[in-house]
Protein backbone atom coordinates (compact mmCIF):
# COMPACT_ATOMS: atom_id res chain seq x y z
CA UNK A 1 0.00 0.00 0.00
CA UNK A 2 3.03 2.26 -0.30
CA UNK A 3 2.45 4.84 -2.91
CA UNK A 4 -0.21 2.90 -4.73
CA UNK A 5 -2.12 5.07 -7.08
CA UNK A 6 -5.73 4.48 -6.40
CA UNK A 7 -7.83 3.79 -9.40
CA UNK A 8 -11.13 3.00 -7.81
CA UNK A 9 -14.46 3.53 -9.42
CA UNK A 10 -17.62 2.87 -7.50
CA UNK A 11 -18.02 -0.36 -9.42
CA UNK A 12 -14.87 -1.76 -7.81
CA UNK A 13 -15.91 -0.56 -4.39
CA UNK A 14 -19.20 -2.41 -4.76
CA UNK A 15 -17.44 -5.53 -6.05
CA UNK A 16 -15.02 -5.59 -3.12
CA UNK A 17 -17.78 -4.98 -0.61
CA UNK A 18 -20.04 -7.69 -2.00
CA UNK A 19 -17.12 -10.12 -2.09
CA UNK A 20 -16.29 -9.34 1.53
CA UNK A 21 -19.92 -9.83 2.53
CA UNK A 22 -20.10 -13.06 0.57
CA UNK A 23 -16.95 -14.34 2.26
CA UNK A 24 -18.62 -13.62 5.58
CA UNK A 25 -21.48 -16.04 4.95
CA UNK A 26 -19.63 -18.61 2.83
CA UNK A 27 -20.31 -22.03 4.35
CA UNK A 28 -17.35 -23.47 6.25
CA UNK A 29 -17.04 -26.74 8.14
CA UNK A 30 -18.30 -26.17 11.66
CA UNK A 31 -14.96 -26.50 13.53
CA UNK A 32 -13.46 -23.83 11.28
CA UNK A 33 -16.25 -21.32 11.68
CA UNK A 34 -14.73 -19.32 14.56
CA UNK A 35 -11.57 -18.85 12.48
CA UNK A 36 -13.40 -16.97 9.76
CA UNK A 37 -11.61 -13.64 9.20
CA UNK A 38 -13.65 -10.49 9.46
CA UNK A 39 -13.39 -9.53 5.80
CA UNK A 40 -15.77 -6.60 5.97
CA UNK A 41 -13.78 -4.97 8.78
CA UNK A 42 -10.53 -5.55 6.87
CA UNK A 43 -12.02 -3.96 3.77
CA UNK A 44 -13.27 -0.97 5.70
CA UNK A 45 -9.89 -0.53 7.38
CA UNK A 46 -8.09 -0.77 4.08
CA UNK A 47 -10.21 1.95 2.53
CA UNK A 48 -9.87 4.15 5.60
CA UNK A 49 -6.12 3.84 5.78
CA UNK A 50 -5.53 4.16 2.09
CA UNK A 51 -8.07 6.58 0.74
CA UNK A 52 -10.22 8.03 3.47
CA UNK A 53 -11.29 10.83 1.22
CA UNK A 54 -12.83 8.40 -1.20
CA UNK A 55 -14.44 6.17 1.39
CA UNK A 56 -14.46 6.99 5.03
CA UNK A 57 -16.95 6.83 7.82
CA UNK A 58 -20.04 6.78 5.65
CA UNK A 59 -18.72 3.78 3.80
CA UNK A 60 -17.98 2.02 7.08
CA UNK A 61 -21.52 2.73 8.21
CA UNK A 62 -23.15 1.40 5.05
CA UNK A 63 -20.93 -1.68 4.93
CA UNK A 64 -21.75 -2.35 8.58
CA UNK A 65 -25.45 -2.05 7.97
CA UNK A 66 -25.20 -4.42 5.00
CA UNK A 67 -23.32 -6.88 7.22
CA UNK A 68 -26.06 -6.65 9.84
CA UNK A 69 -28.67 -7.42 7.24
CA UNK A 70 -26.62 -10.26 5.79
CA UNK A 71 -25.87 -11.96 9.05
CA UNK A 72 -29.32 -11.33 10.46
CA UNK A 73 -28.15 -9.67 13.66
CA UNK A 74 -29.39 -6.52 15.37
CA UNK A 75 -29.56 -3.79 12.72
CA UNK A 76 -26.96 -1.10 13.29
CA UNK A 77 -24.50 -2.90 15.52
CA UNK A 78 -21.82 -3.50 12.93
CA UNK A 79 -22.61 -0.06 11.48
CA UNK A 80 -21.76 1.50 14.84
CA UNK A 81 -18.65 -0.51 15.59
CA UNK A 82 -17.18 -0.18 12.10
CA UNK A 83 -17.81 3.56 12.10
CA UNK A 84 -15.94 3.93 15.38
CA UNK A 85 -13.08 1.77 14.14
CA UNK A 86 -13.00 3.71 10.85
CA UNK A 87 -12.80 6.95 12.82
CA UNK A 88 -9.79 5.76 14.77
CA UNK A 89 -8.20 4.45 11.57
CA UNK A 90 -8.72 7.78 9.81
CA UNK A 91 -7.13 9.57 12.74
CA UNK A 92 -4.12 7.26 12.79
CA UNK A 93 -3.73 6.72 9.13
CA UNK A 94 -0.70 8.92 8.45
CA UNK A 95 1.33 7.21 11.16
CA UNK A 96 0.07 3.75 10.23
CA UNK A 97 0.90 4.16 6.56
CA UNK A 98 4.49 4.83 7.48
CA UNK A 99 4.78 1.76 9.69
CA UNK A 100 6.57 -1.40 8.58
CA UNK A 101 4.19 -4.28 7.80
CA UNK A 102 4.51 -6.04 11.14
CA UNK A 103 3.79 -2.91 13.11
CA UNK A 104 0.90 -2.17 10.79
CA UNK A 105 -0.56 -5.58 11.53
CA UNK A 106 -0.28 -4.82 15.23
CA UNK A 107 -2.32 -1.64 14.81
CA UNK A 108 -4.87 -3.58 12.76
CA UNK A 109 -4.99 -6.17 15.53
CA UNK A 110 -5.81 -3.47 18.05
CA UNK A 111 -8.47 -1.93 15.82
CA UNK A 112 -10.11 -5.28 15.11
CA UNK A 113 -10.03 -6.08 18.78
CA UNK A 114 -11.80 -2.78 19.45
CA UNK A 115 -14.41 -3.72 16.85
CA UNK A 116 -15.00 -7.12 18.42
CA UNK A 117 -15.10 -5.69 21.90
CA UNK A 118 -17.73 -3.12 20.92
CA UNK A 119 -19.78 -5.91 19.34
CA UNK A 120 -19.42 -7.96 22.51
CA UNK A 121 -20.61 -4.98 24.49
CA UNK A 122 -23.60 -4.33 22.26
CA UNK A 123 -24.54 -8.03 22.39
CA UNK A 124 -24.48 -7.80 26.15
CA UNK A 125 -26.63 -4.67 26.26
CA UNK A 126 -29.10 -6.19 23.81
CA UNK A 127 -29.40 -9.18 26.11
CA UNK A 128 -27.78 -11.97 24.14
CA UNK A 129 -24.13 -11.96 25.04
CA UNK A 130 -21.93 -14.61 23.51
CA UNK A 131 -19.41 -15.42 26.19
CA UNK A 132 -17.77 -18.23 24.23
CA UNK A 133 -14.05 -17.44 24.17
CA UNK A 134 -13.85 -18.61 20.57
CA UNK A 135 -15.49 -15.40 19.41
CA UNK A 136 -12.11 -13.67 19.88
CA UNK A 137 -10.24 -16.04 17.57
CA UNK A 138 -11.32 -14.05 14.54
CA UNK A 139 -9.30 -11.02 15.69
CA UNK A 140 -5.75 -12.44 15.42
CA UNK A 141 -6.73 -14.46 12.35
CA UNK A 142 -7.95 -11.34 10.57
CA UNK A 143 -4.92 -9.31 11.63
CA UNK A 144 -2.62 -12.05 10.34
CA UNK A 145 -4.35 -11.77 6.98
CA UNK A 146 -3.75 -8.02 6.77
CA UNK A 147 -0.57 -8.16 4.61
CA UNK A 148 -2.31 -10.53 2.20
CA UNK A 149 -5.42 -8.36 2.00
CA UNK A 150 -3.46 -5.17 1.38
CA UNK A 151 -1.43 -6.92 -1.31
CA UNK A 152 -4.50 -8.27 -3.09
CA UNK A 153 -6.49 -5.06 -2.84
CA UNK A 154 -3.56 -2.95 -4.01
CA UNK A 155 -3.15 -5.15 -7.06
CA UNK A 156 -6.84 -4.94 -7.76
CA UNK A 157 -6.70 -1.16 -7.34
CA UNK A 158 -3.67 -0.80 -9.60
CA UNK A 159 -5.28 -2.78 -12.39
CA UNK A 160 -6.66 -0.79 -15.26
Amino acid at each position, binding site marked *: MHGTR*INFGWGRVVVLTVLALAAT*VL*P*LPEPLEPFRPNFVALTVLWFCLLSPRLLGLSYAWIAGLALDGF*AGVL*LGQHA*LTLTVVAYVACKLRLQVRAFPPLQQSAVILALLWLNEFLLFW*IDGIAGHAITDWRRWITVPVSAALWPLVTGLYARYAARR
Partner: protein
Amino acid sequence: MSSHESDPRPLLLGGPALGLRLLVLAAMAAGLMVADHRDHHLAAIRDGIATLAYPVQWAISAPVQAFDAMRESFATKTRVEAANVRLASDNLVLRLKLMRYESLEQENRRLRAVRESSPRVVQRSLVAEILRVDLDPFRQRVLVNKGTRAGVFAGQAAIDAQGICGQVTRAGPLSAEIILITDPEHAIPVQVNRTGARSIALGTGRSGLLSLPYLPQNADVVVGDLLVSSGLGGVYPPGYPVAKVASVVRDPGQPLLAVEAEPLAGLDRDPEVLLVWFDNAIVEPEPETPAEPGLPAPPPAAVPAAADPGAAAPDPQPAEATAAPTAAPNGDTP
Protein backbone atom coordinates in the same frame (compact mmCIF):
# COMPACT_ATOMS: atom_id res chain seq x y z
CA MET B 1 -11.63 10.30 -8.01
CA SER B 2 -8.42 8.74 -9.20
CA SER B 3 -6.10 11.68 -8.82
CA HIS B 4 -5.57 12.43 -5.19
CA GLU B 5 -2.59 14.63 -5.82
CA SER B 6 -4.70 17.31 -7.47
CA ASP B 7 -7.30 17.12 -4.75
CA PRO B 8 -7.52 20.55 -3.18
CA ARG B 9 -8.87 19.28 0.13
CA PRO B 10 -6.46 19.23 3.09
CA LEU B 11 -4.14 16.28 3.40
CA LEU B 12 -4.66 15.90 7.11
CA LEU B 13 -8.05 14.56 7.89
CA GLY B 14 -9.74 15.12 11.14
CA GLY B 15 -10.77 18.19 12.95
CA PRO B 16 -14.36 18.89 13.75
CA ALA B 17 -15.72 17.53 10.48
CA LEU B 18 -14.56 13.97 11.10
CA GLY B 19 -15.65 13.99 14.73
CA LEU B 20 -19.01 15.40 13.78
CA ARG B 21 -19.53 12.77 11.14
CA LEU B 22 -18.64 10.08 13.66
CA LEU B 23 -21.20 11.46 16.10
CA VAL B 24 -23.95 11.67 13.50
CA LEU B 25 -23.31 8.20 12.13
CA ALA B 26 -22.96 6.66 15.57
CA ALA B 27 -26.21 8.28 16.67
CA MET B 28 -27.93 6.94 13.56
CA ALA B 29 -26.60 3.44 14.24
CA ALA B 30 -27.64 3.64 17.86
CA GLY B 31 -31.10 4.81 16.84
CA LEU B 32 -31.42 1.89 14.43
CA MET B 33 -30.37 -0.55 17.11
CA VAL B 34 -32.84 0.76 19.64
CA ALA B 35 -35.65 0.76 17.08
CA ASP B 36 -34.78 -2.74 15.96
CA HIS B 37 -34.36 -4.13 19.45
CA ARG B 38 -37.27 -2.47 21.19
CA ASP B 39 -40.10 -2.21 18.78
CA HIS B 40 -39.26 -4.19 15.68
CA HIS B 41 -40.25 -1.19 13.60
CA LEU B 42 -37.67 -1.84 10.98
CA ALA B 43 -39.37 -4.62 9.08
CA ALA B 44 -39.28 -2.59 5.86
CA ILE B 45 -35.52 -1.92 6.09
CA ARG B 46 -34.85 -5.52 7.01
CA ASP B 47 -36.98 -6.77 4.16
CA GLY B 48 -35.12 -4.47 1.80
CA ILE B 49 -31.70 -5.68 2.91
CA ALA B 50 -32.85 -9.29 2.96
CA THR B 51 -34.15 -8.96 -0.60
CA LEU B 52 -30.90 -7.39 -1.76
CA ALA B 53 -28.86 -9.99 0.09
CA TYR B 54 -30.85 -12.95 -1.19
CA PRO B 55 -29.26 -13.15 -4.67
CA VAL B 56 -25.77 -13.12 -3.14
CA GLN B 57 -26.70 -15.68 -0.53
CA TRP B 58 -28.29 -17.80 -3.21
CA ALA B 59 -25.21 -17.47 -5.42
CA ILE B 60 -23.02 -18.72 -2.57
CA SER B 61 -25.37 -21.51 -1.69
CA ALA B 62 -26.08 -22.77 -5.21
CA PRO B 63 -22.62 -24.23 -6.04
CA VAL B 64 -22.45 -26.02 -2.71
CA GLN B 65 -25.91 -27.42 -3.23
CA ALA B 66 -25.06 -28.37 -6.82
CA PHE B 67 -21.94 -30.16 -5.59
CA ASP B 68 -23.99 -32.08 -3.06
CA ALA B 69 -26.52 -32.99 -5.72
CA MET B 70 -23.75 -34.12 -8.05
CA ARG B 71 -22.17 -36.29 -5.40
CA GLU B 72 -25.58 -37.78 -4.81
CA SER B 73 -26.12 -38.58 -8.48
CA PHE B 74 -22.70 -40.17 -8.82
CA ALA B 75 -23.29 -42.44 -5.86
CA THR B 76 -22.19 -45.98 -6.49
CA LYS B 77 -24.66 -48.66 -7.37
CA THR B 78 -23.98 -50.62 -4.19
CA ARG B 79 -24.73 -47.59 -2.06
CA VAL B 80 -27.98 -46.99 -3.87
CA GLU B 81 -28.91 -50.63 -3.48
CA ALA B 82 -28.11 -50.56 0.21
CA ALA B 83 -30.15 -47.40 0.61
CA ASN B 84 -32.99 -49.02 -1.27
CA VAL B 85 -32.99 -52.07 0.99
CA ARG B 86 -32.94 -49.83 4.04
CA LEU B 87 -35.79 -47.71 2.74
CA ALA B 88 -37.85 -50.78 1.88
CA SER B 89 -37.46 -52.15 5.39
CA ASP B 90 -38.17 -48.73 6.87
CA ASN B 91 -41.26 -48.56 4.74
CA LEU B 92 -42.46 -51.90 6.07
CA VAL B 93 -41.95 -50.83 9.65
CA LEU B 94 -43.69 -47.53 9.01
CA ARG B 95 -46.64 -49.24 7.34
CA LEU B 96 -47.09 -51.44 10.37
CA LYS B 97 -46.97 -48.38 12.59
CA LEU B 98 -49.41 -46.60 10.33
CA MET B 99 -51.93 -49.39 10.70
CA ARG B 100 -51.88 -48.91 14.43
CA TYR B 101 -51.79 -45.16 14.02
CA GLU B 102 -55.01 -45.06 12.08
CA SER B 103 -56.93 -46.92 14.71
CA LEU B 104 -55.35 -44.75 17.39
CA GLU B 105 -56.27 -41.62 15.50
CA GLN B 106 -59.88 -42.76 15.31
CA GLU B 107 -59.87 -43.45 19.00
CA ASN B 108 -58.20 -40.13 19.70
CA ARG B 109 -60.80 -38.29 17.67
CA ARG B 110 -63.59 -39.95 19.60
CA LEU B 111 -61.96 -39.03 22.89
CA ARG B 112 -61.39 -35.46 21.68
CA ALA B 113 -65.03 -35.24 20.74
CA VAL B 114 -65.94 -36.33 24.24
CA ARG B 115 -63.72 -33.59 25.67
CA GLU B 116 -64.78 -31.11 23.00
CA SER B 117 -61.20 -30.06 22.46
CA SER B 118 -59.59 -29.24 19.18
CA PRO B 119 -56.98 -31.71 17.96
CA ARG B 120 -54.14 -29.28 17.16
CA VAL B 121 -52.61 -31.41 14.48
CA VAL B 122 -50.51 -30.12 11.64
CA GLN B 123 -52.83 -29.07 8.86
CA ARG B 124 -50.54 -27.82 6.16
CA SER B 125 -46.84 -27.88 5.54
CA LEU B 126 -44.39 -26.30 3.16
CA VAL B 127 -41.00 -27.67 2.20
CA ALA B 128 -38.28 -25.03 2.45
CA GLU B 129 -34.72 -25.58 1.35
CA ILE B 130 -31.96 -24.54 3.74
CA LEU B 131 -29.52 -22.18 2.05
CA ARG B 132 -25.93 -23.20 2.60
CA VAL B 133 -24.74 -19.98 4.19
CA ASP B 134 -23.31 -19.43 7.65
CA LEU B 135 -25.01 -16.64 9.49
CA ASP B 136 -23.25 -16.42 12.83
CA PRO B 137 -20.96 -19.15 14.14
CA PHE B 138 -22.13 -18.68 17.73
CA ARG B 139 -25.82 -18.74 17.07
CA GLN B 140 -27.66 -21.67 15.62
CA ARG B 141 -29.63 -20.07 12.84
CA VAL B 142 -30.27 -21.03 9.25
CA LEU B 143 -31.72 -19.33 6.25
CA VAL B 144 -34.39 -20.96 4.09
CA ASN B 145 -35.57 -20.11 0.61
CA LYS B 146 -39.22 -19.42 1.42
CA GLY B 147 -40.53 -16.15 2.76
CA THR B 148 -43.70 -14.18 3.31
CA ARG B 149 -44.58 -14.58 -0.35
CA ALA B 150 -45.04 -18.28 0.32
CA GLY B 151 -47.04 -17.49 3.45
CA VAL B 152 -44.24 -17.99 5.95
CA PHE B 153 -44.65 -15.97 9.14
CA ALA B 154 -42.52 -15.20 12.15
CA GLY B 155 -43.07 -17.71 14.91
CA GLN B 156 -43.87 -20.56 12.57
CA ALA B 157 -42.60 -23.98 13.61
CA ALA B 158 -40.12 -25.85 11.44
CA ILE B 159 -39.79 -29.64 11.65
CA ASP B 160 -38.03 -32.37 9.73
CA ALA B 161 -38.64 -36.06 9.37
CA GLN B 162 -37.06 -36.84 12.74
CA GLY B 163 -38.36 -34.08 14.93
CA ILE B 164 -38.69 -30.41 15.65
CA CYS B 165 -36.00 -28.15 14.18
CA GLY B 166 -36.90 -24.67 15.35
CA GLN B 167 -39.04 -21.69 14.54
CA VAL B 168 -39.01 -18.79 12.13
CA THR B 169 -37.57 -15.68 13.73
CA ARG B 170 -37.79 -13.36 10.79
CA ALA B 171 -39.58 -13.74 7.50
CA GLY B 172 -38.46 -11.64 4.56
CA PRO B 173 -40.24 -11.61 1.23
CA LEU B 174 -38.09 -14.35 -0.32
CA SER B 175 -36.25 -15.90 2.58
CA ALA B 176 -36.74 -16.57 6.25
CA GLU B 177 -34.42 -17.04 9.17
CA ILE B 178 -34.98 -20.03 11.41
CA ILE B 179 -33.67 -20.24 14.94
CA LEU B 180 -32.81 -23.83 15.73
CA ILE B 181 -33.74 -25.40 19.04
CA THR B 182 -30.02 -25.58 19.87
CA ASP B 183 -29.55 -21.79 19.70
CA PRO B 184 -28.55 -20.40 23.10
CA GLU B 185 -31.47 -17.98 22.95
CA HIS B 186 -34.04 -20.65 22.25
CA ALA B 187 -36.18 -22.59 24.68
CA ILE B 188 -38.79 -25.15 23.82
CA PRO B 189 -41.44 -26.47 26.21
CA VAL B 190 -41.11 -30.24 26.29
CA GLN B 191 -42.56 -33.22 28.02
CA VAL B 192 -40.97 -36.53 28.92
CA ASN B 193 -42.93 -38.92 26.78
CA ARG B 194 -42.73 -41.77 29.30
CA THR B 195 -43.99 -39.91 32.36
CA GLY B 196 -45.60 -36.78 31.03
CA ALA B 197 -43.36 -34.57 33.16
CA ARG B 198 -43.06 -31.13 31.61
CA SER B 199 -40.01 -28.96 31.43
CA ILE B 200 -38.16 -26.58 29.17
CA ALA B 201 -35.28 -27.54 26.92
CA LEU B 202 -32.78 -24.76 26.34
CA GLY B 203 -30.36 -24.54 23.45
CA THR B 204 -26.68 -24.59 24.30
CA GLY B 205 -25.19 -23.08 21.16
CA ARG B 206 -23.68 -26.41 20.22
CA SER B 207 -25.46 -28.35 17.53
CA GLY B 208 -26.41 -31.66 19.04
CA LEU B 209 -26.97 -30.60 22.64
CA LEU B 210 -29.92 -29.30 24.60
CA SER B 211 -30.00 -28.74 28.32
CA LEU B 212 -32.91 -29.16 30.72
CA PRO B 213 -31.90 -27.18 33.79
CA TYR B 214 -35.32 -26.96 35.47
CA LEU B 215 -36.04 -30.55 36.51
CA PRO B 216 -36.09 -31.14 40.27
CA GLN B 217 -33.95 -33.82 41.92
CA ASN B 218 -36.90 -36.18 42.33
CA ALA B 219 -37.92 -36.02 38.68
CA ASP B 220 -38.23 -39.35 36.97
CA VAL B 221 -35.89 -38.96 34.01
CA VAL B 222 -33.51 -41.59 32.71
CA VAL B 223 -31.05 -41.68 29.85
CA GLY B 224 -32.82 -42.56 26.64
CA ASP B 225 -36.14 -40.93 27.53
CA LEU B 226 -37.88 -39.36 24.57
CA LEU B 227 -38.76 -35.69 24.92
CA VAL B 228 -41.71 -34.49 22.87
CA SER B 229 -43.05 -30.99 22.42
CA SER B 230 -45.73 -30.21 24.97
CA GLY B 231 -47.46 -27.60 22.84
CA LEU B 232 -47.53 -25.09 25.68
CA GLY B 233 -46.88 -21.62 24.39
CA GLY B 234 -48.58 -22.46 21.14
CA VAL B 235 -45.55 -22.13 18.89
CA TYR B 236 -44.93 -25.83 18.36
CA PRO B 237 -47.52 -28.47 17.63
CA PRO B 238 -47.75 -30.83 20.63
CA GLY B 239 -46.51 -34.39 20.60
CA TYR B 240 -43.68 -34.07 18.11
CA PRO B 241 -40.33 -35.61 19.05
CA VAL B 242 -37.68 -33.11 20.10
CA ALA B 243 -34.76 -34.89 21.72
CA LYS B 244 -33.50 -37.96 23.54
CA VAL B 245 -32.04 -37.64 27.02
CA ALA B 246 -28.30 -38.21 26.77
CA SER B 247 -27.14 -37.73 30.34
CA VAL B 248 -28.63 -37.17 33.77
CA VAL B 249 -26.39 -35.88 36.55
CA ARG B 250 -27.83 -36.14 40.04
CA ASP B 251 -25.68 -33.96 42.28
CA PRO B 252 -27.18 -34.08 45.79
CA GLY B 253 -25.73 -30.65 46.51
CA GLN B 254 -27.79 -29.07 43.79
CA PRO B 255 -31.50 -28.37 43.94
CA LEU B 256 -32.02 -29.28 40.31
CA LEU B 257 -30.92 -32.04 37.99
CA ALA B 258 -28.43 -31.41 35.21
CA VAL B 259 -30.00 -33.10 32.21
CA GLU B 260 -28.64 -33.01 28.71
CA ALA B 261 -30.42 -34.19 25.60
CA GLU B 262 -29.57 -34.72 21.97
CA PRO B 263 -31.97 -33.25 19.44
CA LEU B 264 -33.50 -35.81 17.11
CA ALA B 265 -33.88 -33.55 14.10
CA GLY B 266 -30.86 -33.58 11.81
CA LEU B 267 -30.12 -29.95 12.55
CA ASP B 268 -26.74 -29.76 10.89
CA ARG B 269 -27.44 -32.24 8.11
CA ASP B 270 -30.89 -31.37 6.80
CA PRO B 271 -31.03 -30.06 3.26
CA GLU B 272 -34.59 -28.93 3.88
CA VAL B 273 -37.19 -28.44 6.58
CA LEU B 274 -40.97 -28.45 6.75
CA LEU B 275 -42.69 -25.28 7.81
CA VAL B 276 -45.99 -26.22 9.35
CA TRP B 277 -49.35 -24.65 9.95
CA PHE B 278 -51.49 -26.08 12.70
CA ASP B 279 -54.54 -25.03 14.59
CA ASN B 280 -52.93 -23.54 17.65
CA ALA B 281 -56.06 -22.29 19.28
CA ILE B 282 -55.77 -23.13 22.94
CA VAL B 283 -58.78 -24.98 24.20
CA GLU B 284 -59.96 -23.18 27.30
CA PRO B 285 -60.24 -19.40 26.98
CA GLU B 286 -57.84 -18.67 29.81
CA PRO B 287 -56.52 -15.13 30.34
CA GLU B 288 -53.16 -15.58 28.72
CA THR B 289 -52.53 -12.52 26.63
CA PRO B 290 -48.74 -12.70 27.00
CA ALA B 291 -48.82 -16.24 25.68
CA GLU B 292 -50.73 -15.42 22.53
CA PRO B 293 -49.61 -18.24 20.28
CA GLY B 294 -47.66 -17.77 17.13
CA LEU B 295 -47.96 -14.04 16.86
CA PRO B 296 -45.09 -12.63 18.93
CA ALA B 297 -42.18 -13.02 16.59
CA PRO B 298 -39.11 -13.02 18.87
CA PRO B 299 -37.87 -16.46 19.75
CA PRO B 300 -37.87 -15.89 23.50
CA ALA B 301 -41.65 -15.87 23.17
CA ALA B 302 -41.50 -19.57 23.75
CA VAL B 303 -39.96 -19.04 27.16
CA PRO B 304 -42.38 -16.68 28.83
CA ALA B 305 -45.23 -18.56 27.27
CA ALA B 306 -44.02 -21.81 28.69
CA ALA B 307 -43.02 -20.39 32.02
CA ASP B 308 -46.37 -18.71 32.44
CA PRO B 309 -48.29 -20.74 34.99
CA GLY B 310 -51.52 -19.52 33.42
CA ALA B 311 -50.60 -21.18 30.18
CA ALA B 312 -49.76 -24.39 31.92
CA ALA B 313 -53.24 -24.77 33.33
CA PRO B 314 -55.20 -25.77 30.22
CA ASP B 315 -53.86 -29.17 29.51
CA PRO B 316 -54.15 -29.98 25.84
CA GLN B 317 -52.76 -33.48 26.18
CA PRO B 318 -55.18 -36.19 27.20
CA ALA B 319 -52.20 -38.50 27.19
CA GLU B 320 -51.01 -36.70 30.28
CA ALA B 321 -53.83 -38.17 32.23
CA THR B 322 -51.52 -41.11 32.70
CA ALA B 323 -48.79 -38.96 34.20
CA ALA B 324 -47.35 -40.35 37.39
CA PRO B 325 -48.23 -38.45 40.56
CA THR B 326 -44.59 -37.61 41.03
CA ALA B 327 -44.78 -35.73 37.79
CA ALA B 328 -47.06 -33.10 39.23
CA PRO B 329 -44.39 -30.87 40.78
CA ASN B 330 -42.27 -31.31 37.71
CA GLY B 331 -44.31 -28.91 35.69
CA ASP B 332 -42.77 -25.65 34.74
CA THR B 333 -40.78 -24.68 37.79
CA PRO B 334 -37.97 -22.58 36.42
